């Protein structure tokens, strides 16, 4: 068995005529935080869905813990998913259940624990994200940051071997951003799991990641340890990490030269 939990080989995926991934190789280690970064619209969320077996690639293979996700039968895939936690961008809490019931949901579905046991577990998980006091609230009463924290409590309810975070920092105020960064770091250390963070918030992600993949236009542009990436001299990586307006990704959307548009008159 290799040291990597997720092994992606020559992954190709397209939606209609749009190519999203054009041959991606990736190894995600069993321990530590792996960040997958790239501009918006490069299919980072799609990658997580491919790993979770919710989408089928056009070609290539994805192995999670030695099992080829695409070849699994439904029951095997479900067994594998029980060992994966996923935090969706919106939190994906079930709106007709309270916070408590949301966290209890995977436990009720997949275990035969007594009601008292479930109650204790749920309160512990909620305590870990600091929302034990919000147990009886409904998801509609939560702020975006709180919803994500509840979703994190739910994602770790079954003590998974890996947790995938889909854009955990998007649209958060600095305080909840800080809370989420802390939580991801702490969870990873305390549970010693594999954490995959998909994000384009460079600073926050780099602060917790051990290993970084940068993808763009369907390819892995560069990968390496966080330190190596900080001082990478690839022009593309520099533009992305430093947030420069112009560079390999041009400021201008492809167009005819300006003078042509301005002086050839209206068509």
């Amino acid at each position, binding site marked *: 068995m290799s040291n990597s939990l997720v092994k992606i080989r020559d992954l190709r995926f397209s939606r209609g005529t749009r190519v999203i991934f054009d041959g991606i190789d990736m190894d995600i280690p069993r321990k530590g935080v792996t960040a997958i970064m790239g501009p918006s619209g490069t299919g980072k969320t799609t990658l997580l869905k491919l790993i979770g077996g*919710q989408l089928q690639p056009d070609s290539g293979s994805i192995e999670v813990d030695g099992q080829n996700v695409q070849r699994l039968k439904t029951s095997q895939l479900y067994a594998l998913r029980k060992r994966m936690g996923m935090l969706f961008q919106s939190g994906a*809490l079930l709106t007709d259940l309270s916070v408590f019931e949301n966290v209890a949901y995977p436990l009720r579905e*997949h275990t035969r624990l007594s009601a008292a046991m479930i109650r204790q577990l749920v309160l512990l998980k909620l305590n870990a994200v600091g929302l034990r006091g919000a147990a009886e609230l409904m998801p509609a009463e939560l702020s975006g940051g709180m919803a994500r924290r509840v979703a994190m409590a739910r994602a770790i309810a079954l003590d998974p071997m890996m947790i995938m975070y889909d854009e955990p920092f998007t649209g958060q105020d600095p305080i909840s951003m800080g809370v989420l960064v802390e939580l991801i770091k702490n969870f990873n250390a305390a549970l010693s799991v594999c954490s995959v963070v998909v994000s384009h918030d460079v600073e926050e992600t780099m602060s917790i990641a051990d290993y970084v993949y940068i993808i763009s236009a369907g390819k892995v542009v560069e990968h390496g340890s966080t330190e190596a990436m900080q001082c990478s001299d690839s022009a593309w990586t520099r533009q992305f990490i430093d947030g420069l307006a112009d560079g390999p990704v041009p400021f201008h959307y492809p167009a005819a030269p300006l003078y042509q548009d301005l002086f050839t008159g209206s068509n």
Partner: protein
Amino acid sequence: MLLARIEQLGRTALAGIQRLGRGNVFLLQILVGSVGLLRRPGLLVRQLYSVGVQTLIIIIVAGLFVGMVMSLQSYYALVDFGAEDSVSVMVVLSLLRELGPVVTALLFAGRAGSALTAELGLMKATEQLSGMEMMAVNPIERVVAPRFLAGVISMPLLAAIFSAVGVIGAYLVAVELLGLDSGAFWSQAQAKVDLIQDLGNGMIKALVFGFVVAWIAVFEGYDCIPTSEGLGQATTRTVVHSSLAILGLDFVLTALMFGK
């Protein structure tokens, strides 16, 4: 230009057929998922509430007025022939055979069907369905099947209530307002209305309509484009397609049941 038109036409047709196929596969998945529902009757009860009970008020009000109007209209038509005692026959037969199932189904599509589509579409847009899948829970079994079954069960019950309330409305107008004989009202109906041929077939119609409306509603919701625009379109499609399906099927069923 013409070639592009034809190409477009072909694409639309193909997409339509593909969608039809997807809908049928989806139905199969629902039916398989429904089996697992036996162990969780609580889910079904909750949906029976939001699909059935919450549609009840509009059904009762509509049924009452339809019955009253029918009674009044047929009285004026029949009184010229001295056949006003047949008001009950006319109203009851229309209600049991046609208006009960059809009007109930149309109202059901507008009230419960659109709500089902919107709810499922919203769950899709907020990644709740995806989230369930990632929690190793099959959303078709846990979310879609209870809603579908609740629709199938609710429709005949609602249609029965609609017809019964309609009959009461007709009685109120015919007997209390127009002064027809109460005994004649009931006995005329009893002489002409057949338990199986009329009441039974009407209920079969209602069951078929419930099946189709619930199917269309959950499919449109589950299959919608998860944006606010896609959601709106899906909800509209549910109402339009359900209504057309109800009226078309009604003709086919009527021809099968009452045409000899």
